[in-house]
C-alpha cells in the first residue's frame, strides 16, 4: 500500500487497487489544496489493471496522515454537496407546486368571473 517511506515518512507513494481516475483525481485535488503538501500527483501504471499510484510529499508531517486528512476533507465536501443538493431540490419542488397551484387558482378565478 505505502511504498518508499521506509527512511523518511514525509514522502510516500500509495498504491490503491480497484480505483481509477474517479477517486484519484478528486483526492489529488484535495491534497494539493492542503498547505502542508509540497507535491502531490497520481498515475495509472497500466490501464488494464485497476491500480492507481498516489504520490505525496509534505513539509515534514507523515504522508499517511496527510492523505487521511485529505480523504476526510473530501468526505465532508461530499456531505456538504449532498445536503445543499437535497435542499435545492426540495425548494425547487416546493416552488413548482406553488406555481402549479397558483395557475390552477387563476384559471378557477377567470372561469368564475366569466
Amino acid at each position, binding site marked *: 500500500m505505502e511504498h518508499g517511506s521506509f527512511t523518511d515518512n514525509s514522502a510516500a507513494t*500509495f498504491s490503491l487497487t480497484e480505483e481509477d481516475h*474517479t477517486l484519484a*483525481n478528486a483526492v489529488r485535488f484535495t491534497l494539493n489544496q492542503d*498547505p502542508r503538501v509540497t507535491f502531490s500527483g497520481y498515475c495509472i501504471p497500466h490501464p488494464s489493471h485497476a491500480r492507481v499510484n498516489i504520490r505525496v510529499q509534505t513539509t515534514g508531517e507523515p504522508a499517511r496522515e496527510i*492523505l487521511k486528512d485529505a480523504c476526510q476533507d473530501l468526505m465532508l465536501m*461530499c456531505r456538504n454537496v449532498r445536503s445543499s*443538493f437535497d*435542499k435545492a431540490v426540495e425548494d425547487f419542488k416546493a416552488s413548482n407546486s406553488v406555481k402549479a397551484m397558483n395557475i390552477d387558482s387563476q384559471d378557477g378565478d377567470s372561469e368564475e368571473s366569466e
Partner: protein
Amino acid sequence: MAGKEEENKKFSIWDLPDVPMGQLPPHLELQRSRVFCNRDAPIHTESVQYSGAYASMGVDNSLRLDHFCNNFRVEVVRLTEEDMEFDMIGIDAAIANAFRRILIAELPTIAIEKVLIANNTSIVQDEVLAHRLGLVPIGVDPRLFEYISENDQPNEKNTIVFKLHVRCERGSPRITVKSDELKWLPKGSELVKESRNATSDSSSKPETYTSFSCSQETMPELAKNPIAPKYPDIIIAKLGPGQEIELEAHAVKGMGKTHAKWSPVATAWYRMLPEVVLLEEVEDDLAEELKVKCPVNVFDIEDLGKGKKRATVARPRACTLCRECIRGEEWEQRIALRRVKDHFIFTIESTGALPPEVLFTEAVKILEDKCERVISELS
C-alpha cells in the same frame, strides 16, 4: 547623496495605493477563475490548485472547508421524472468529473443478463435477441436487491425473472414483438431443469433454474408497483407467419463498469458557464451584424434613441462556444468569450429505474464510500 540612497531603498508593492491587500489583482483573478476561449485555442484551462500558488502575493489559495461550505451553491433549473438540469457553483472540475464518472459507470442497476431460450424460430439470432433484451431498461429500484456472484444460487433477493412467449400464426400478417410482451414472473423460473437423478421423488416440486423461497410480490414495494420494462414500446424482434419465440430472461444487479446495459443514465454531462463580455461598444451596423451572426441568439439590440443602436449580451448561458462571433477580422478585440471555472451546468438523463435527483444523491454517497474505504485501508 543621502536623498538618492533613500529613493533606491527597496519598496514593497503593498505601498502602491491600488493593489488591494490580501486579494489578487483583477487580471490575476481573471486568469485564476476564467478560461479564455480564443479563436485558435482556449488558454488558462487548468484550475490553479496548488495551495502556495499565490504565496508571494500573500494570498492563500488553500482549501478551507468552511470557505467551501459557505460558497458552495446548487440551483435547480429543470426537474422532471426523466431528466434534470442544475447548476453547481463553487466546486472544482476534479470533483464534478468524479460525480459524472460515477453516474455513468458505478451506480448499480438491474438488467437482463441470462436468457434461457426454449424455442426461437424467428430470423433474429439467439445471441442478437439476448443482447437486445439486455439493453431494455427495467423500471425497478436496484437498492431492493443484492448482487449475485458466480457460486450463488439465484433466489428472490438477487434475480428477477421475465418470460417472453410470442407466436405468429400462419396466415396472419407479420407481428412486431415489443417490450411489453416481457411478463414478470414473481414466483421465479418456470423452466424445469432436467433431473438426472432417477431416485428423485416424483411428488416433490420439479427443480427449476432459480430457487425462490417466496414470491417477490410479498415484498411491500413491489406489491404496489409490479416490475415491468420502463418503456412498453421498444421493438425487440419481428416475427413472420409460423415463427415463435419462447424464452425466459433473468435480470441481475450490476454496474456500468462491466457493461453499458447496467448504466442508469442515458447520459450525464456537464459544461462550464459561458461568459460573453463586450470589450468595446458595438454600435449600429456592427451590432446588427453581431446579432445575426450568433446561431443561438446570445446578443440583442438595444435602442439608444436618435437612430443609434447598441448590442448587449442577453442570453450568455445559451452560448455553445461556436466562436462565430469572433470569426471575422477584428471581432476578437470587441468580444471576449470566457468560461467560469467553478460553475458547472450539470444535466442528467435517467433511463427510468430511479429519478435523476436520487441518482445524483447515490453518486455522492458512492464517492463518500470510496473515501472511507481508502481511510480504513490506511489506518
